[in-house]
């Protein structure tokens, strides 16, 4: 197995791909493909892949600090988010305002990736947005730890990928941001987006 993990938002249309990449149709859950009819992937398969990503990356990065693994997961999410957003925003009107962009992330983007919308959006109108998801789909079936604190602690590394996803989506729309995530207790999690004002 090569050392680089494959990114898994590659989608190809059933008319053959444009460049020389071999067609591999994995798509985010619920995203509509550009061919007729949506391409769907089984959600348990996606979960399995995501859960495996953590230990696999740790094994692949020998001698590196844990931060390197988080960085890699975030970069994976970044690439996925960039491509996904261009596709999802294709038929949407162009965005005039930062708030519109974040609302698009909360609604359409979240719906396409997690099959639900963000539960709560807060902003201080100065470029900081807080997205709260009370029932984060990727944490819903996590089990095995005895206390809520342990479970939250164990799942925290997996929040880096959604961070990258949001950051990539915003970068794809032209906004440089910093995204952080935290969870007070699974399945709840909070993402904080800081957009550089005065773009």
């Amino acid at each position, binding site marked *: 197995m090569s050392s680089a993990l*494959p*990114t898994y*938002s*590659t*989608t*190809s*249309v059933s008319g053959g*791909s*444009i*460049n*020389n*990449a071999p067609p591999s149709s994995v798509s985010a859950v619920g995203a509509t493909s*550009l061919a007729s009819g949506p391409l769907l992937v089984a959600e348990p398969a996606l979960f399995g892949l995501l859960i495996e990503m953590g230990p696999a990356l740790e094994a692949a990065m020998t001698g590196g600090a844990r931060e390197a693994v988080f960085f890699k997961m975030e970069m994976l999410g970044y*690439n996925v988010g*960039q*491509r996904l*957003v*261009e*596709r999802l*925003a*294709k038929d*949407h*009107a*162009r*965005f*005039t305002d930062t708030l519109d962009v974040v609302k698009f992330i909360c609604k359409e983007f979240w719906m396409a990736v997690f099959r639900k919308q963000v539960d709560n959006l807060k902003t201080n109108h100065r470029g900081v947005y807080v997205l709260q998801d009370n029932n984060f789909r990727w944490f819903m079936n996590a089990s095995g730890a005895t206390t809520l604190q342990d479970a939250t602690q164990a799942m925290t590394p997996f929040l880096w990928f959604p961070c990258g996803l949001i950051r990539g989506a915003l970068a*794809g*729309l*032209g906004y440089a941001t910093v995204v952080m995530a935290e969870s007070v207790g699974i399945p709840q999690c909070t993402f904080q987006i800081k957009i550089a004002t005065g773009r």
Partner: protein
Amino acid sequence: MSYYFAIVGTRDSPIYEAAIGNPLKDDGKHLHQFVLHAALDFVDDIMWTTPNMYLRVVDKFNDWFVSAFVSAGNIRFMLLHDSKNEDGIRNFFTDVHELYVKSLMNPFYEVNDPIDNPAFDLKVRTIARRYL
């Protein structure tokens, strides 16, 4: 009926160019790039006034028109043409945009990379033949 089409990335450098027919033949091919680059300023002005992606004609050069289309990720698609054909040009832009999004799905392709795939070029010319 000749056209010059270019896809301009987010950093204002062209990532794809195609001359269909032979526009501006007497002035030299370098003038195509110059005209489209100058029209970028107009695109930047107009794109904030409308939520549409298709910006219609943004600039005029002698008797040539420049039409533009801006994608969600701020990629500009610009077409230099001499005849007014709004519907055809809009369909052309929409189809090329779809084609661009498909090539973006390739994990080895980063945003703002030049597109030098002959299959992409062939498809663009087919779309141009269909709508323009």
